[in-house]
């Protein structure tokens, strides 16, 4: 009898655990689905870096994204300022499982360099965003655990699959009433201490389907530094194709 109870409790625990896993995964898939079909987009944005003392530094970028279904998205980032890196651009092929491919075009030497690094956890151009925070969010890159539901918010814990990730986990809040858009993410570092919080603000709905935040605000709780991404424009009618995401395309910018 005792054994039965124990088994049942154990089963229940395993069941709830796996249920939480399933529910977390479901939400991630739902979010991906909700954003599916935008095909391609282009945006210009300003990155504002702020240190503890409020000293500010700015960079301007253009981002183009091509949606792929069978593999991760392709993206192209062009730096428009500061002046000395103007025209420098990166091309990234995200993959669902293997490490992403990445190239960088350097206008100063007119050469494309392939960055063969499995490091995705470092800061992106000195900002509080890691490269892994900015790259396309593929469902396969994490395992999941559903935490709670609060009004229309769903909170899911995500564990990166890549051992070289800078995080042990992220706690993501989705808004299920607005196409599962992400409202905020808490990042926990390797020792599982709260490192950063990313909040998404000023969401706009494009093409009646795609939610895009005009402002992303990353706060590093440990260094007290902040970075803001301000999206100045979004264009979903650019009709980009694979040809716009090749090494040759990199050089054209």
């Amino acid at each position: 009898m005792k054994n039965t109870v124990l088994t049942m409790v154990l089963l229940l625990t395993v069941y709830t655990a796996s249920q939480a896993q399933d529910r977390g995964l479901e939400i991630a898939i739902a979010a991906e689905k909700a954003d599916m079909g935008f095909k391609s987009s282009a945006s210009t944005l300003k990155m504002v870096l702020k240190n503890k003392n409020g000293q500010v530094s700015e960079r301007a970028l253009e981002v183009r994204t091509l949606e792929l279904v069978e593999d991760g998205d392709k993206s192209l980032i062009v730096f428009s300022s500061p002046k000395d890196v103007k025209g420098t651009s990166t091309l990234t092929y995200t993959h669902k499982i293997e490490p992403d491919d990445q190239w960088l075009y350097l206008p100063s030497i007119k050469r494309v360099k392939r960055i063969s690094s499995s490091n995705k956890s470092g800061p992106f151009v000195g900002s509080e965003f890691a490269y892994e925070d900015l790259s396309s969010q593929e469902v396969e890159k994490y395992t999941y655990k559903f935490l709670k539901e609060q009004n229309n918010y769903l909170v899911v814990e995500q564990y990166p699959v890549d051992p070289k990730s800078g995080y042990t986990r992220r706690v993501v809040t989705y808004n299920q009433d607005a196409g599962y858009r992400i409202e905020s993410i808490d990042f926990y570092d390797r020792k599982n201490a709260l490192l950063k919080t990313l909040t998404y603000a000023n969401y706009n709905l494009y093409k009646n389907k795609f939610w895009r935040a005009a402002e992303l605000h990353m706060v590093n709780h440990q260094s007290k530094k902040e970075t803001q991404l301000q999206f100045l424009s979004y264009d979903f009618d650019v009709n980009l194709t694979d040809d716009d995401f090749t090494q040759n395309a990199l050089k054209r910018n």
Partner: protein
Amino acid sequence: MNAFKKIKNSANKFAINWARFVIKNKWYVFVSAVVLTTVLGLQGAMKFDGDYHVFFSKSNPELEAFDALQDKYTKDDNVILVLSPKNKNIFTKVNLTAIEELTQQAWNTPYSSRVDAITNFQYTRAENDDLYVDDLSYDSINKSESEIEDIRQIALSEPMLVNRIINPEGSVTAINITVRLPGEDSALEVPEVMNSIRAMITEFQKKYPQFEIHTSGMVPLTTAFFEASMKDMALTGIMLLIVILTTFILTRSVQSTFATLLVVLFSIISSVGFVGIMGIKLTPPSSVFPTMILTLAVADSIHILMTMLQKIRKERMSKFDALIESMRLNFMPVFITSLTTVIGFLTMNFGDVPPFWDLGNIVAFGMTMAFLYSTTVLPALMAILPLKKGRVDKTGKVSRFNYEWHTILSSLVIRQPIAITVISVAIIGGLTYLSTKNSFNDEFINYFDQTVQFRSDTDYISNHLTGVYNVEYSIGSGESGGINNPDYLKKLNEFEDWLYEQPEVIHVSAFSEVARRINRSMHGDDEGYYRIPDSREEAAQYLLLYELSLPFGLDLNNQINVDKSESRVTVTVKNLDSPDMIAFAKRGEDWLSQHTPDYMHAIGVSPMLMFSKLGFRQANSMFKGNIVALLLISLVLMLALRNFKLGLLSLIPNVAPVLVGFGIWALYKAQINTGMVIVFGMTLGIIVDDTVHFMSKFLRARREYGHSPQRAVEYAFQTVGKALVTTTIVLLSGFLVLSTSSFALNSYMARITVVIIIAALIIDFLLLPALLILTSPIKRARRKYTSILFYR
């Protein structure tokens, strides 16, 4: 009746009335003292602060400059783990695997923000148009022999690693853990880090016993400060025992010993209350306050008790009468000596080092309370406690010996006053000259003696791997993004090269090195391109590429600011003493101002530099304080002696011991630290007692008994000789206890105080009487009443 007598009578009356009041209300007095002590004691709190920042006042310019630098880049505290494998070769599969594992583990250290090791060094290499940036040794367990040999080659030729993370022989390596403490409560955060590190090391050594591990860094330094504070506080116990023993030997009375013990304990408990009320966090220098109070406070009680017991035992007075008489005789001397001590300690507030403000204020408060308790609790308790009426003391051997000893001294001084003066002045002059040969040295690692683990571990690191001291320069480029300007980089590179030419330099970490390294990688690892890129665009774009390839925690934020307008140069130097350190930093500053444009000029900063300048800063600021102490104490003396000339004369025996002390120190260590700067004001308040006692007895003999100067000197020796020796012994034992401290700010201060106190007694017994004889008019003094304050 002249004016003196009137004052004398009123002072007498006051002391007598005070004593009568205390005796009459002995229980009330005692109970209210207990209540006061309890109330104060309940406010008490012993909190410690081990952060080295406590040594610097808010307005300290070196601290401000250092904080500004840390704000620009990253605020770093660190723990260095130094690993020495028994086989003296880091580059084996097993050892690299172990290091890789420990490095991985180190990321779990609370508040850690970065971990640098040989294995996770971001090695950059090029293959055609591909750029590889990766851990130098990842997954070491699966590496082949030849791969490990490659790793060895790379590591030992990498300027970023050699002499910083690994020694040139490849037998000792370090893991540097950078932590970012929130800084809310170092008493909690630091032990949290250290406990985690210690547990990690224990685990590691269980698995890999072939490694010897030494720990250093700013966090262990803080821990060492904490531990030094607590250890020095524990010296109180030894001092308490000494106090009990001394009091018992001197008074041969259990009741007196008990009463003295209560007085000093009450004084200490009250001071602890003061610490709590003022919210003072104890640091190594201020944590010696209980021992100091014990040492200084016990003299008050001993004076009062000795006189009382003498009156009972020798003159067969009744207990109450003896008590009143003792209070009458001692009230003013105890008041004056307490006052001078309080003045001496309060002058520490003139300095620039906050822990000494705390020490000065706590001891000043403790001494005030000790005066209060010695004149209330002590007589009350003696009135309460039953005391057998003593037998008449027979003149024992000891006192006969004392008598002879005094006589020899006094007859010597009387016969040869000129010779003694000349010889003394010559010796004092010589030692004074020597005292200028001392130089300041505040190498903070050397604050801890060899018995402290932190010190021996740190010494190991500086002997086997790298320097533990550094100087940092934040070098501006004059514009946003300007660090990529080749002109800037070339100048920076020149600076880097110049630094490496300096004999003191062990390692330089500069952004120019990063720029060279990336340039090489961008050109297919061609050594010819190990130089600054040709154009700003190239440099900027290479940097962008490089930054994109770095992992979490190993970014360049600790080397370049967000605006990319400034970069940080960190110079690791050999162990230098303070003057050399200051001179070295200055040389760097001068080089920059001579060879670079204005915007690249920078001042050197670092904790070591802050400490190096601390002694000078403290000495400059204490100078004023010392003058004030000297003036105030001389004024008190002139008033107490009621003689301007003798007041001036007393400056000689009060200032000379300090000069003698520092002169002897020049022969002993020749290096003085910040802790010793306060010694002048502090000892002045203490040693002045000897002079005052001696001079007042001399004056009394001259004025009241009309003795010749020679005879008056003899009288002074007879009456106070023994008392002065006794109090000196008590003081010496207290400071000898403190001199055993493992913390140099305390032990050096105590050692020189010991020398000064001994010098003071010798000078008061030789030079002072000689001078008194020489300066006194030959004619017999008119009968006159002596000071109102001293006439035991």
